[in-house]
């Protein structure tokens, strides 16, 4: 079984299970030796997976779809047998935001829950504006500079904005908890390394439960605060951890279909043949079940 792995992640609270998996030995318990690679963009994650530089990665669920069906810039068949997180998505508006005057609003990546949540919210409120992509770490400074009037992003960035007094968080109470970040691998890798994949999922299942326990949040926040990981103040990270559900771990074909419908709704893709089958091959609940037995 392949035991040395390189796993990519982006600096967000929902990467906690991966980081804790390494730092607290959950990977080692399953016989895995993991090197974590912090990536500055989602595009890097996709491309390094595609080239085999990464074995697995922290991914946006719709990005797994995007890459597999070739809706974006790169086509590579991916799949996921484990959901890392649901929740943690928020919309923050600048204190001086004027929403009636064609506001510029930012999100993290074109194929993301954040994009679709933002568009749906704009539509529901009748806000006609421009939607742009800005990296999470630049969102707060862009808000401060006035180049954007708000953004939709994951934890802890809404908290960062609020904490700095620059932004006000919008209440999104009715937001369903959908599969947000997943463990992504190429389909080839999954076929070649089923044992390793299973060990990885088992480790993340344990790590996820440990991370989900609020009693552990102060310790987790200290780990994630390090420069190699999120490089942000522990209190902000700790608040962000509380927003996320780390234990809804089964891949959801239903959420996969929702994402597909959103990609169509906002003009990113056309109609797809055999949607159910394709989504089922990408978000593999059966594989997850077999791994956690």
């Amino acid at each position: 079984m392949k035991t040395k792995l390189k796993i990519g992640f982006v600096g967000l609270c929902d990467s906690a299970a991966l980081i804790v998996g390494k730092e607290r030995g959950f990977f080692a318990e399953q016989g895995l030796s993991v090197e974590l690679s912090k990536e500055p963009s989602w595009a890097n994650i996709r491309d390094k997976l595609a080239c085999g530089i990464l074995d697995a990665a922290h991914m946006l669920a719709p990005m797994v779809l995007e890459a597999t069906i070739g809706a974006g810039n790169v086509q590579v068949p991916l799949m996921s047998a484990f959901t890392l997180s649901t929740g943690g998505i928020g919309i923050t508006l600048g204190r001086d935001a004027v929403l009636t005057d064609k506001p510029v609003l930012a999100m993290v990546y074109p194929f993301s829950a954040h994009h679709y949540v933002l568009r749906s919210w704009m539509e529901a409120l009748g806000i006609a504006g421009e939607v742009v992509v800005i990296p999470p770490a630049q969102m707060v400074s862009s808000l401060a500079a006035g180049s954007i009037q708000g953004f939709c992003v994951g934890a802890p960035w809404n908290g960062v904005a609020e904490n700095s007094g620059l932004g006000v968080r919008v209440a999104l109470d009715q937001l369903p908890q959908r599969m947000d970040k997943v463990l992504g691998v190429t389909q080839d890798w999954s076929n070649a390394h089923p044992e390793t994949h299973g060990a990885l999922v088992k480790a993340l299942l344990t790590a996820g439960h440990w991370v989900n326990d609020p009693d552990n949040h102060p310790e987790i926040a200290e780990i994630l605060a390090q420069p190699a990981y999120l490089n942000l103040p522990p209190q902000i990270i700790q608040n962000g951890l509380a927003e996320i559900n780390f234990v809804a771990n089964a891949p959801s074909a239903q959420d996969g279909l929702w994402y597909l419908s959103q990609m169509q709704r906002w003009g990113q893709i056309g109609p797809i043949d055999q949607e159910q089958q394709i989504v089922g091959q990408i978000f593999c609940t059966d594989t997850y079940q077999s791994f956690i037995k």
Partner: protein
Amino acid sequence: MYCLWFRALPLILTDWNFSKLVGLVTLRVILVDENADRAKMVQGSLAAQGYDVVAVLGSGADLSARLVACNADVVIIDMDSPDRDILESMRQVGNEQPRPIVMFSQDGDPQTIKSAVEVGVSAYVVDNLRPERIKPVVDVAIARFAQFQSLRSELDKAKSTLAERKLIERAKGILMKRRHCDEDEAFGLMRKMAMDQKIRLADVASRIIDAAELLG
């Protein structure tokens, strides 16, 4: 007057974009690189080959606006830049961007793509340019990035060699003092331990230094 031997012609066939298609007008390149030294190397090589490097940007430099303002054809961006996701969106978000941008790899050959990713460079092009026109630019970027990578690892190796030499000197000094021996003897003791234990001299040195600290 224009011989229409191309099968598919994009949009409106003006003088200007026809010339671009057949390579009569030089490509306009924007470089996005977190590393100013490396950016200089790439810019130099591209300029020498006749490409027009219209801007060199760091991160957070309002990339979208600069792209439109500079009327760039190609963006060479280092993979350490968080701005890649901004470029990814320019084909997708569907705002009034005049020229959709796609990533080179959709048309590039897999080995080129892999080489690019391995040295940490990525390329984006406007949608109506043929991949053959971009390949030379990407090849230059890959070559310079690879050269920079190997220069950097040579420098790291030299630094660590220097650091190791200092460790060894320090350990020798400790041994000489404790065991009242001369430099040759001290070095001989260290070398023997290294051979017996099958470890590196620098590791023996570290052990000696650590032990001396504990023993006081």
